[in-house]
């Protein structure tokens, strides 16, 4: 068994190479993740968001005398799964402790958490950097705990309202080592962490709904100093962008304080998104004394190594691994491959397409362009659209063999999202096939030439610039169906070679 007390963190020394930089910034992050189990962590109440206030509570949630919390097996399983994905060791001895404090959102006056024997410890996350290097961010620990209720402040009635539905929502708190050296690195880490968690399918990871929350610890120290400076804790950031903004603000604030000869006070600061600044919430003097002690209501736990191995084997391919493989296997660049990997569904869709067609770059362009555009603008997920890998590849083939111009192919794509008809049927029904037969095209060019005397004269005088304009006119006349390459050829032959 491994004792991993809260608050023992070792720091790496890392020098910033920015010119004239007097201070290094040291950042550690704490992420609270709501796990998407069916029921709550210690009782059978439903674990879902948005129900009527106080309609998903029971004596365990309300901390009534005589109630007994019993651990949801799935919560421990998810915690192990996440721990393994974050390269953590899984403790051979797991126990729960009471974290004591008084607040109206906590009916028992203690939160069931883990103090010195968390489920996971000593892991790391590899974060690809823009400079194509990889940053290794240490994970100190990840422990299971229960969420508290929700407080709504009612100014009109000068009171606060408590909704206990959220009490007992399973949480995993993931704590990094103070390894991050800039707001950007913190942001990049969060992106990778979220993506990894999405691949594991263990949480909604929705910061707006509060299913993923992030607090940050930040301090500065003179370049070359190895001892950590006095840190402040930042709370209340409701997006990754807000985390980055809050850290940048705090980095500057601390630097200014120290440069002016002042000292940093250990405190908790609240980020105000509207004002883009943080304000003091509580100082160390008022800091909590949680008086942790083992919770006698819950037994210790031990996860069999065979179960750990079983979970390890069930892990999906994780984003960074998938990224590396997709780059290698399909010859895509960093950027293209990253777009595909940014969602497990998109990556799977791409690989299905790649089984049917070998122009991988083109498939990738269609997915990262048209497909992702539609998903984003319609605020849908891939599963809501009617396009299948087979139909997308059919469409790509029609565009590649010249049956469809690229422009029209995009129209066909939009139709294909809304019907189950085959690509051929859509093309036929809408009369969208590209016109390539020369008789028709010659006729169109005839019309274009007589209607655009000035442009034709200019070309005959040696200035080929208006050629593109004439091709455009032909496309317009045919609603984009004419084969632009052939139109260009005919125009050249008729005007220049004549």
């Amino acid at each position: 068994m491994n004792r991993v007390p809260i608050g023992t963190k070792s720091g790496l020394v890392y020098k910033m190479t920015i010119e004239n930089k007097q201070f290094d910034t040291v950042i550690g992050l704490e992420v609270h993740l709501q796990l998407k189990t069916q029921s709550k962590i210690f009782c059978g109440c439903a674990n879902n968001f948005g129900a009527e206030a106080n309609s998903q509570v029971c004596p365990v949630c309300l901390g009534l005398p005589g109630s007994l919390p019993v651990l949801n097996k799935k919560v421990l399983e998810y915690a192990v799964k996440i721990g393994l994905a974050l390269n953590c060791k899984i403790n051979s001895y797991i126990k729960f402790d009471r974290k004591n404090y008084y607040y109206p959102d906590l009916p028992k006056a203690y939160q069931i958490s883990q103090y010195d024997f968390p489920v996971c410890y000593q892991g790391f996350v590899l974060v690809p950097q823009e400079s194509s290097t990889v940053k290794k961010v240490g994970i100190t620990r990840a422990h299971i705990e229960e969420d508290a209720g929700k407080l709504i402040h009612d100014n009109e009635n000068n009171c606060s309202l408590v909704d206990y539905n959220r009490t007992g929502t399973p949480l995993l708190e993931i704590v990094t080592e103070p390894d991050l050296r800039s707001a950007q690195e913190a942001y990049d880490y969060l992106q990778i962490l979220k993506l990894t968690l999405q691949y594991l399918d263990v949480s909604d990871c929705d910061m707006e709904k509060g299913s993923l929350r992030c607090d940050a610890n930040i301090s500065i120290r003179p370049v070359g100093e190895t001892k950590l400076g006095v840190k402040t804790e930042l709370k209340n950031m409701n997006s990754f962008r807000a985390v980055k903004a809050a850290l940048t603000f705090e980095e500057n604030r601390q630097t200014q304080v120290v440069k002016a000869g002042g000292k940093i006070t250990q405190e908790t600061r609240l980020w105000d998104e509207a004002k883009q600044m943080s304000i003091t919430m509580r100082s160390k003097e008022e800091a909590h004394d949680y008086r942790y002690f083992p919770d006698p209501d819950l037994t210790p736990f031990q996860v069999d190594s065979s179960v750990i191995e079983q979970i390890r084997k069930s892990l999906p391919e994780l984003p960074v691994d998938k990224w590396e493989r997709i780059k290698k296997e399909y010859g895509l660049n960093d950027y293209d491959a990253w777009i595909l990997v940014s969602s497990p569904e998109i990556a799977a869709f791409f690989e299905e397409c790649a089984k049917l067609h070998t122009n991988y770059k083109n498939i990738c362009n269609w997915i990262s362009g048209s497909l992702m555009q539609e998903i984003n603008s319609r605020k849908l997920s891939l599963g809501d659209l009617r396009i299948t890998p087979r139909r997308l590849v059919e469409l790509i083939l029609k565009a590649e063999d010249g049956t469809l111009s690229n422009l029209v192919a995009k129209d066909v794509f939009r139709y294909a999202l809304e019907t189950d008809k085959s690509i051929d049927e859509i093309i036929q029904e809408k009369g969208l096939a590209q016109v390539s037969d020369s008789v028709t095209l010659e006729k169109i060019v005839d019309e274009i030439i007589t209607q655009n005397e000035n442009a034709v004269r200019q070309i005959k005088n040696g200035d080929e610039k208006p050629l593109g304009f004439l091709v455009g006119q032909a496309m317009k006349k045919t609603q984009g169906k004419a084969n632009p390459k052939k139109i260009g050829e005919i125009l050249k032959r008729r005007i220049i070679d004549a």
Partner: protein
Amino acid sequence: MISEKDVKYAASLSRIHLSDEEAKPLTKDLEKILHYVEKLQKLDVSKVEPTSHVLPIKNVYREDKVRSSLSQEEALKIAVEKIKGSYKVPKVIE
């Protein structure tokens, strides 16, 4: 040595208000208790396996199954005051 200040701090953590008259005897009591703990700490427990639970059991789980909850009405029966389907408490803004 335990001081009256320690007792008042412990009381404040538990939201208990103690007058000076109450704090004085409690300080003495707590002092005695800690003396006893000191005695316990002198025992040789180097050969005793540490434990965090009184019973030699482990891995008591429940399956991830939803059971019905209390109704909002039932849940709010114990509320001292209620408003809009919620427990009403004095305004708390940290």
